[in-house]
């Protein structure tokens, strides 16, 4: 999975979502999301493989004062 989306990929994603993006909006949306996507991609690789959403509530419960 690449973390930097190009114009064409943005338009494909938008088309899949059924949203009519004009070219400028598609490019802007893709450009705007590229840095956070890259950061998220970088961090995802360091996650524990076994992590799962239910651990959130468990962590909340454990951390109560």
């Amino acid at each position, binding site marked *: 999975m690449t973390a930097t*989306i190009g114009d064409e990929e943005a338009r494909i994603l*938008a088309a899949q979502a059924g949203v009519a*993006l004009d070219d400028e909006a598609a490019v802007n*949306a893709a450009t*705007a999301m590229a*840095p956070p996507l890259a950061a998220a991609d970088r961090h995802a690789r360091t996650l524990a493989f076994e992590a799962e959403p239910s651990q*959130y509530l468990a962590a*909340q*419960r454990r951390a109560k004062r």
Partner: protein
Amino acid sequence: MSADLALLSASELARRIRAGKATARAAVEACLERIDNRNDQLNAFIALDAAHAQATADLADAEAKRGRWKGPLHGVPLAHKDMYYREGRIATCGSKIRRDWVAPATSTALARLDAAGALDLGTLNMAEFALGPTGHNWHHGHARNAWNPLHITGGSSSGSATGVAARMFFGSLGSDTGGSIRLPAHYCGVVGIKPTWGRVSRANAMPLSWSLDCVGPLTRTVEDAALMLSIIAGVDPADPTAAGEPVPDYVVGLARGVRGLRIGRPASFFTEVDGESERALADARRVLERLGATIVDVPIPDMERIGACFTMVMGPESATIHREWLRTRADDYSGQVRARLEAGLMVPATFYLDAMRARGPLLADFIDTVFSRCDVLLVPTGTSPAPTVAESEVTGGPDLVARLTHFPKFTRPFNYLGLPGLTVPAGFSGSGLPIGLQLVGRPFDEATLFSAGHAYQQATEWHTRVP
């Protein structure tokens, strides 16, 4: 008498009404006078319902005469962000799309305030669909800061913050997905609490991002925030995500003070603020230390990682909620909100799921790193006092996300982690704009935040200043 009543806290007004020294009707008239004087300039209200407030105030006074008290907010006038549904009333959610939408049911939070005796003056301005950190609104007009109308209120609970600051009402429900209670509280010099995720029911409140949204009050004092949260918090059959954790009496807990409390000073990330905010925080630490707290230096986990995860959650969830309208009514969104929602469509499902499954480990890591060393973390709410409306207007372009995410830099990590955060007025800039500190605590430990914030307010007078 009316003008003086408007300057009281909600708790003090409630005590006076209970003691027969004030009436609900006089309190409503005092609010209406303030609204009449300042709303044209500040644009806090979307819909003021003076007649309804006057009528319900008269009913409250009649009940009081018979010795019937509905609850701890009997006769106290409030007003709320226009995303808390009341059956039969329009809830615009700050949008054009819902300009005429009539709510089919009443939100749990509003119903609980009604049951406690609170009055409702009307619906308040907000960022369109609660998606905006500045207080700009291109459909209903920008809200303006009560301390200087050239400056932003912060958002998205813009009308709530500026109206509480201007003493138009005694408290207000806001909502906080990435900082939307705490940021406007900081910019407008009022108190705001984002409770632990799940602490307050979201039933029949407009959703923005269900894994992050929190309901909470903006008030003049910490005591008022403690009172309002005591009323609205707790389990709700209408919202399966509302936590079953017991709700303590936060007002009684205020007396605990800060003696022996370990207050964390962050070693990194939260240090990136302007000089005036830095001085205000240093002063606040000295006040708390004088009151008996211990200041301890704490390391801070990788906040860039937490910020990236926040974006991966909020983007797809908000885009999912709005997808049908993006398809059918895209032109009815403002440029900024449409662009942000569309950006959420660009996040692959794998990224969203990675961010969600990272939430538990990252929360556990944050707690191990920070809350093993301190009881409360003291950090800034914003990177600076409020900028002007003009300089913070962002309508599109490739730098849109970067420019907007700068505002909630210090608030959104705690939405992702689900931790409670309390913003309290802590000073003013040289140009007279408020600065608010932020106290962050362990999950479901709002009580410690309130006792620390209250102790701080007992020793300072920032919250008593009126614009």
